[in-house]
């Protein structure tokens, strides 16, 4: 069965969805990603959906769920590269994804994650001292 690869980039995880999602794949990703966050102690997750041309309510909810799970595991989620058609569909479905950070492309998404990490990084320094 095919899986969506999860790449590690320092303290962040990068998930690039290159195929149209079906339900089983989405559930598998949810499972894989939570494990990967736990294993790597990731501080941020970046999900690139620029190649995703179609969403339904299930996939929309799954994206919101993943972000919620990541937050509990102390990782910030940024969703990048959403296509206009996908954005319109999600809004029409009533899924405005509150609490999910978004960015236009991977570069800006990474910037957001770094910024978030720098802001929360003060705590670590405090412990070291």
């Amino acid at each position, binding site marked *: 069965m095919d899986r969506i690869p999860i790449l590690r980039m320092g303290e962040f995880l990068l998930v690039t969805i290159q195929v149209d999602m079906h339900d089983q794949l989405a559930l598998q990703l949810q499972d894989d990603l939570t494990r990967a966050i736990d294993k790597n102690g990731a501080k941020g997750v970046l999900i690139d959906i620029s190649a995703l041309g179609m969403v339904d309510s299930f996939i929309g909810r799954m994206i919101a769920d993943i972000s919620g799970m990541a937050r509990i595991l102390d990782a910030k989620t940024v*969703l*990048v*590269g*959403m*296509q*206009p058609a*996908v*954005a*319109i569909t*999600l*809004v*029409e479905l009533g899924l*405005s*994804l509150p609490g999910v950070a*978004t*960015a*236009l*492309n991977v570069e*800006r*998404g990474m910037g957001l994650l770094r910024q978030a990490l720098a802001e929360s990084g003060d705590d670590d320094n405090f412990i070291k001292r």
Partner: protein
Amino acid sequence: MTSKGTLVSALQTRRQEILATWLAQLEHVSASSKGRLSAKDLGKQADEFLNILASTAQTHGTDDAGAEGWQAVREFLEDLSRQRVLAGFSSDETATFIFSLKRPLFDALGQVCSDSADDLAKELWITTELLDKLGLHTVKTFQASREEVIGRQQTELLELSTPVVKLWDGILALPMIGTLDSARTQIVMESLLQKIVETEAQIAIIDITGVPTVDTLVAQHLLKTVTAIRLMGADCIISGVRPQIAQTIVHLGVDLQGVTTKANLADALALSLKRNGISFVKH
């Protein structure tokens, strides 16, 4: 005598007479349309129509104007009504073209069937039915052509009224003008989102100075657009909120919290520049 024969023979033997009376009738009723259609053109059209009518009636019978054989007549009328739409005629002026043929035809039939009142009544009924059908078809085509024109104008208006302008690097503005309905908002939303993808703009300003009224539906459309923009990873500012509209929005109980609003486009631009880390120094 068959019903087919009488009308056809009337059309053939008294053609000149019918045409002359018909033209006189047309002249009389369409005095207002002078200038849009010359008497010569009208005469030509009438002459042509009589030719087609006579030949069709002869070959295909006069029972059903909706039948296959009457295609040529219908097409002629379709062309005619289309031309008249473009020339700016009204629907009754167009329909009169057919209905004014009744009198000359009835006169001619009366002379052909002068010996039998029963035959005449029967013929009149057939002719009336036929001309009514043709007349209705003309009006139908007239309406359809007109709706086509209106539809085309609407699309043009839609395209004209949704320009997305780039104000600065990474800052887009959409000056909205006119009433917002679902169809328009959809197009506005799509073109704005598409432009955001193309230009990778971080901030989109929707200026509603030109929107006359805001009701719950319009507010809902605005909120949807703002949410879609946020989902794509850009920020949205709504500018040009007039005092009257601010009052309406609050009275309607629309929740615009979480949406940045500014009184005018200048303020919105200033905020966008600040967010992008651009500042101006006055020398």
